[in-house]
Each structure stands twice: as C-alpha cells, then as structure tokens.
C-alpha cells in the first residue's frame, strides 16, 4: 500500500488521537492510594430517592453490565395501611427507565429503595467461594478476581440480597465493585455521581472527617436483613419495615 505525503499528514493526527483514546481507557495506577486507610461503605437516603433510574443507567454504562443483570437496581415499594408483610414491589428492568405512574386515589404509601452489594464485612459470598476468587479487599470492598473465578455460582446462592450474577459472556461471578477503579482515584461511584438528589453517598468509615459519622449519629439508620449478620455496610436512612 502506497501512502502519499498528503495522506500521511491526515493519518498521523488521527493515529495520535486514537492512541490518546487507548491510553485514556487504561487504568492509571494510584500511587497515593493506601488501601489500609479506607473502609468503604455507602449511605442511601430513602426519603431522597425519586426512582429516576439514573444510578442504574450510570452503573451499566460505567461497568459494562450486561442487559438483564444488575450491579445496582431500584425497587418501588407499595405498602397499604398495616400490611407491612405484603408489600407490592416492582423493579421493571431494574428501574433503569424509571417507574410507571401510580393512581392518584391510591391510599397506600410508595417509596423507592436502591439496592446494590452491601459490601458485607462478614460476607457469606466470600466465605463459600471454593478458590477464594472473591474476597474482601483491605479497604472493605467485596471484589471478584474474574481471571480466577470458576463460575460455580456458589456465591450467587450464598448472597442473601441477590446482588450477584454470572456474567453471561465472561461466565464468571459479577457484582458491584463500588466502582473500585474510580474510588481508588479519589472519585465517587458512578451511581452516586449520577444521582440527582444525593440519595446515594459514598462514605469512608475510616475517615473521621467523612460526613457519614455525623449522619449516623443523628439519624435512624438501618441495614438490610440484619438477622443475616453479614456486617452489611450499605446504610439506609428512613428504611421502612416492609423492605426485604
């Protein structure tokens, strides 16, 4: 193939731009990040969630989550009167495109509950992994080594919250990493960043200046399924008793 000088002058900048793009996609090292100085968690304020689905979309775009599977999703609860044990729950396509409108004369209460991996400190999923491919990092995030995972799905069975799935193409366990590639660079997670109301806040429990400490002191905060004793680190403010 013969390339003229003219073509070369056009191609070179294009190649430079392409190379820049390749470099931009390569994770940078985080020389200043010390894992032992952090203990990551998340705060979710139910009263602020409007069920827009921005977090779900942002997560899918950021983490290349396959269709039909979710690292995070939003549920809409509908509880009538005293029927706490029988809530009506929906999450169409994980709440990605929002929710259908409700009848104006409905006497029940509606609220949204964003869900994600609870980054449990005593996680049942890491306990059962036969090869230790899933583990808790020193900064408190439950991760999966996808080059090591067998794809046995034992962890999927062990998670009480339904947060794990087997990636249909990679055939390995996949789950929320709390956007580990972002938080180790000083950024927040994609879902927190995309949330328009601040209903989701990334929090560092080891950082004494993190506002979460003040929040936990002054609010009624709960975790999901405390009876499971998983050491869940996703804290919910204003959590209704009907939420599972």
């Amino acid at each position, binding site marked *: 193939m013969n390339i003229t000088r003219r073509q070369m002058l056009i191609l070179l900048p294009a190649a430079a731009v392409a190379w820049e793009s390749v470099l931009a996609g390569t994770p940078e090292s985080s020389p200043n990040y010390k894992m032992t100085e952090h203990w990551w968690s998340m705060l979710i304020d139910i009263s602020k969630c409007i069920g827009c689905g921005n977090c779900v979309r942002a997560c899918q775009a950021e983490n290349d989550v396959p269709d039909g599977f979710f690292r995070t999703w939003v549920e809409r609860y509908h509880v009538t009167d005293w029927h706490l044990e029988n809530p009506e729950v929906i999450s169409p396509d994980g709440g990605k495109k929002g929710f259908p409108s409700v009848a104006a004369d409905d006497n029940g209460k509606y609220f949204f509950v964003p869900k994600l991996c609870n980054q449990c400190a005593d996680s049942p999923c890491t306990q059962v992994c036969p*090869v230790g491919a899933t583990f808790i990092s020193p900064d408190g995030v439950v991760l999966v080594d996808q080059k090591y995972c067998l794809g046995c799905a034992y962890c999927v069975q062990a998670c009480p919250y339904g947060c794990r799935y087997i990636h249909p193409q990679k055939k390995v366990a996949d789950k929320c990493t709390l956007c580990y590639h972002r938080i180790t660079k000083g950024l927040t997670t994609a879902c927190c960043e995309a949330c328009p109301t601040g209903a989701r806040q990334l929090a560092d429990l080891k950082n004494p200046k993190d506002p979460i400490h003040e929040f936990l002191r002054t609010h009624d905060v709960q975790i999901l399924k405390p009876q499971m004793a998983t050491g869940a680190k996703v804290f919910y403010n204003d959590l209704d008793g009907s939420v599972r």
Partner: protein
Amino acid sequence: MTTGVEGYMYPNEITLYWSVLIVLYPYITGLVAGAFILASLERVFRVDAVKPTYRLALLTALAFLLVAPLPLQLHLGHPERSLEMYFTPHRTSAMAMFGFVYLWYLMAVLTVEIWLDYRRDIVVMAQSSSGLKRWIYRVLTLGSNNINERALAIDERVGWLITLIGIPSAFLLHGYVGFIFGSIKANPWWSSPLMPVVFIFSAMVSGIAAVMLLYMLIMRLRREKIDMLCVDTIARYLFYIFIVDFSLEMLDLVHRIYEADESFRTLNFMVHTKLYFSQIVLQIFVGTLTPILLLALTQVLKLPEIARKRIYTVAGCLTLIGIFAMRWNVVIGGQLFSKSFLGYTTYKMALATREGLLMSIALTLLPLFILWVLVKLLPPWPEKVQAEIPATTAAN
C-alpha cells in the same frame, strides 16, 4: 426476560444457576455412599446374608463415584480452572473441602478396598488370561503377586480396616454434600442442620435400592437364581433405613410448619404450587410412602417368592425416583423462590445443551456403562474365579 416470574424476584434471581446437573450431583454421590454402606454391612457388621452383593456394591460405588464430579465440572463457567480447588483451596468453603473429601474417598477408601478384595483374583486372572487382558491384569496387580495364605490374611485384615474407615468416610462424603446446601444461611429452604443427616439417610436408601435392583437384574440377565435370603435381608435394611429417612424429613417439615418463620408462607406456597408434583406426588407419595408400604407388606405378610421379587423391583424403582425427586426439590426448589420472599421464578430445562436433559440422561447412564466394564474386568462372582483356579494350577 421476566417470563415465568410471579410476584417479585430480585432482578438477578430470575435466572437459575444450579441446573439439573446439580441435581444429579448429590443423587450420584448418594448412590455411592449408599452402595458402600451396603457393602460394609457384610464386611464390618458381618451380615453374611448380603454377601452376594458385596463386590457388586463396591463396583457400583466406584462406577458412580467416577462420574460424580462430571456434572459439577460441566456446570462450571470455567471448567479449565476447576483444579484450582485442589491447588489453592479456600479453606472456609464447603465446596472446596468437598474436593478433598472426594479424593480421600476415591483414592484412600474405595479403590484400595476394591483392590485388596480383588487382589487374589487379579493375580489369578493375570496368570490365566492372555493378550491385552493379561496385560491389564498384570498392571492391576501393581507388582504384588504373592497370594499365599498369609498374604491373603493380611489383605483381609487391611481390607476390614479400610471398610471400617470407609463407613465414616461414606457418611462424610454425602453428609458433606448435605452441608454444602445446609450451610447456606441465605436460603431458608436449604439452611438446616438436619440437611447433612437427611442426605446421609436418603443416600443409604437410594444406594441400597440401586444395588438391590442391579443384583436382581444381573442375576436375571445371567439366568441365575436370585439369592432370596440376600434380597430379603437387603429389603429389610432398606425398609428400616427408609423409615428413619422419612422420619427425619417429616421432622424437618413439621418443624418448619410449626415454627412458621418469615420464609414459611413463601415455601408453603411453593410446595403447593411449583413443587406440588415433584414434592408431594413424586417424592412423598410415589417415592417414599408407596415403597415403605410395599416393603412393610413383605415384612408383615408371608408372601411367595415371586411376589416378593416383584414388590422389591417396584419398591426399588419407586425409591430411586423418590430420592431423585428429593434432590430435585432441594436443588431446584431452593432457587424457585425469591430471597425477598415475594415471588417465584420458573426452571426451564434445556434439551440438548451442556446442562440440558440429554446430558443429564447421558450422565445417568454413564455409570451403568462403567459398571458394565468393571463387572467384565473384575467379575463380582467369586465362583467364576474359583472355577478358574484348578485350571490355572493345572496349566502351571
């Protein structure tokens, strides 16, 4: 995507990850443990009546044990990484430790016991056969050709010891399979300390029924007389163990119904709808109560031989169906409901996929083929080798 879903499932729960292959895994492992326990009745507990099935039971256990890891292997997303379970096992994982229990049982118990029991026959056959068979038997002797009385007495003693170790090992093997399910606190259908015990007793039931059926079938194919004392004794043990097994399962059920914790309403609904046929009809009525009643008849009434044979055959087949249904209900049932207790999904078995119906049929038939090869290679009928000894001696 949401076809087959009723109520609300967490979105990642809609897909079932443990398919019919994971149903086969405890089923096959249970047959191994049960067959071995039957063999140990003769060896350790000196129940001489079941002697005709002793070797057949051991070979059955081996045939099924060789196939037991295959369904697991086929189900993995990355089967090529499965050996990591041995190289870098995660010590808190029940599944990782199962690999070692399996290896222990295969290498330290079953093959050693079979080899010790057959050593004399192997040496004799290595001398009496020719061609490729001769070479196979010579390799199988592992260079140990001494079959004088003292050597055989040592074989006998060591074999007894191995069987003695083998009984708790068989319990461990299948109890451990139960633990893999029973230790999952996230799943109320599985999470129960009774699970390993129920698995052990159901394993014994299925293994004993399988060997009883195989013995009667092989005798029929060989046009030989069935040793009725042997079959009657096996059936009696099957009956007793079945009653213990059923009692344990009912204890679990009654406990769940009476306690009626947060999961009860969901599980109860599931049993009355999606699991109605496999649990109530197949497992409890067809696969448990009917065989128990049939076996009870043979214990209470003095029935003629032909009637007993037919009853044992029917009861044995129903037992195998019932125990398969039990495994199905545990494995598939445990994934049909949401951990939110608000909904149900559906399991659709594929036909010709890696985890489909045809594969599971093939995996069920494969141990029978292996057993056929083993029986050809190591005939479990002592009289055949006995008959060959004079000929061999004469040839020498």
